[in-house]
């Protein structure tokens, strides 16, 4: 996760409280999802960004996971997300993120 976004998330966590936030990702591939999740739960694993050493414990979902998809109104889901479900393999990301959420 780039440093600019890490900084914004740190500020939002200060403002709203991390217990009131959820991160929703839109990654196209599983590569990188684990690092994203680790950054906003345990802290920046590279120890270089604003979230280095900051364990916010914010739950992370992918927008195509069932838990999120079922929240989106049917028509919007069909128009905006249906195509992505055909090209993005959500299962590996679901496994990584489910494991990450289970640790919170």
């Amino acid at each position, binding site marked *: *996760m780039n440093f600019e976004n890490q900084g914004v998330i740190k500020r939002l966590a200060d403002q709203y409280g991390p217990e009131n936030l*959820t991160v*929703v990702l*839109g990654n196209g591939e599983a590569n990188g999802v684990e690092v994203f999740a680790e950054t906003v739960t345990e802290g920046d694993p590279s120890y270089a960004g604003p979230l280095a050493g900051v364990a916010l414990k914010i739950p992370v979902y992918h927008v195509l996971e069932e838990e999120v998809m079922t*929240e989106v109104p049917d028509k919007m889901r069909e128009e905006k997300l249906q195509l*992505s479900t055909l090209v993005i393999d959500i299962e590996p990301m679901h496994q990584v993120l489910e494991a990450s959420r289970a640790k919170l």
Partner: protein
Amino acid sequence: MLKGRKIIAIGERDGVPGPVIAECLEGAGYEVVFQATECFV
């Protein structure tokens, strides 16, 4: 872990972009407090 929480949408250029995630979650009644689109090259 989703209900009642504010949403931070981090999309990806080659996946689902941030504005699309934000639009879908706002359509579901959530408050999106930040959205961005990252790019992995």
